[in-house]
């Protein structure tokens, strides 16, 4: 069973730290360092690796829409654009899902599946007091990489990559310092002399 502490302890072994942590909130030096880097490292790894098991689909929550939309056309002729509408030239503005690390694709619900004439749907991530998603697709569904928080849900290869990533970040503060260059050369000579 994979745990945060288990992964941190494996990383500590890699950097050669002499002891393990019992809990990430215990307050020891390695636990404080691990706590600082855990979330950002995990999210960065999810974003880079894009594991298939972390993909989710969610029907987005509509925040704003352009006026008088008729079959993909908005009619602004009755008034000027203001911030109550989505950024031009988009038709819809949706809420960015809270657990979304990386939006991948906008889908539309079709009446029949499977779809034999697939068509791409464009979108853009933007900022409008909060992170939002702009698209021209009504009732949009977003496929995205979600933050899967529990390491027990991770595949083993991802957990292994996380150990490596945590160890790399811990190396600076907790790792054994390599001996100075001159010292190393002397050691090498000593070893060679036998």
């Amino acid at each position, binding site marked *: 069973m994979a745990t945060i502490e288990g992964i941190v302890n494996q990383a500590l072994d890699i950097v050669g730290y002499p002891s393990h942590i019992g809990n990430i909130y215990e307050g020891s030096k390695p636990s404080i360092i691990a706590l600082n880097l855990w979330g950002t490292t995990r999210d960065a790894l999810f974003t880079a690796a894009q594991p298939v098991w972390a993909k989710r689909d969610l029907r987005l929550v509509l925040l704003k829409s352009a006026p008088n939309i008729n079959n993909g056309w908005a009619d602004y002729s009755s008034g000027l654009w203001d911030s109550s509408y989505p950024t031009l030239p988009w038709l819809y503005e949706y809420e960015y899902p809270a657990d979304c690390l990386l939006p991948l694709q906008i889908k539309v619900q079709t009446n029949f599946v499977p779809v034999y004439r*697939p068509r*791409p749907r464009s979108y853009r991530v933007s900022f409008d007091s909060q992170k939002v998603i702009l698209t021209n697709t009504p009732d949009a569904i977003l496929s995205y990489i979600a933050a899967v928080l529990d390491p027990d849900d991770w595949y083993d290869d991802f957990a292994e990559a996380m150990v490596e990533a945590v160890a790399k970040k811990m190396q600076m503060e907790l790792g054994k310092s390599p001996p100075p260059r001159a010292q190393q050369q002397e050691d090498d000579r000593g070893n060679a002399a036998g």
Partner: protein
Amino acid sequence: MATLPADVITEALGEIGADEIGDIDDGSRASIRALRIYDTTLREMHAAAHWNFARRQIQLYLLADTQGLYATETVVPLPWQYMYEWPTDCVQMRFVFCAGVTAMDADGNPIGQLIAPFRQRPVPFIVSDYLRPNPIESSWDVIEGHSPESTRVVLTNELAATAVYTGIVQYPDMWPPLFRRAFSALLSARLAMSVVSDKKFAAQLRDTNQNIADKALIEARVRDGNEGWTIVDHEADWITYRSGGPEYGNETY
């Protein structure tokens, strides 16, 4: 289970050593790229030859008649007499032929047409864009040849014109094997640069798969040409005129 577009894309990705996709909407880099090019590439392949498997024949829908006998609209670009709607599934119009229709009933059904078998005689026609707006609420956005400003039309002097055209066949199980191979190789060539990270290698893969696609296309055309009894769908006009009798004498084109 029927073959899906995602299966064809996976086949194409396999040719360039890329990972398969789960479905065409799975959000992977490969699926996003494939989604952009799938439909256009399929249409391009359909237009590359007069494929037997995509041959369709229908009586065209009359939009306008200069005399106003069979349609309320009477404006037709000169020098043509009838204007017909471009079939919604049409990729390429092959020819329009004369079925000897002398009139149409109130439902638009032909009257007086020739009884089979008869000699198929092509008639002049032209595909044109006409300033005939489509309502915004219609499905113009998913039908080739339709826009809010204009419509692609077929102009001819033939009443109740019957058209033979290449229709889009969306279902992979309907494609002949060689067409599928050519399409898959073309997809591979187009996906290589965006899916394979080593761009030098990707360029080689692209060129290799483009060559495979070209050769497969030639093979597919040959196979298609050898299928069936007829070598060509219609006689060239100059042959028709050379061998035609008095029945062609009064025609002005």
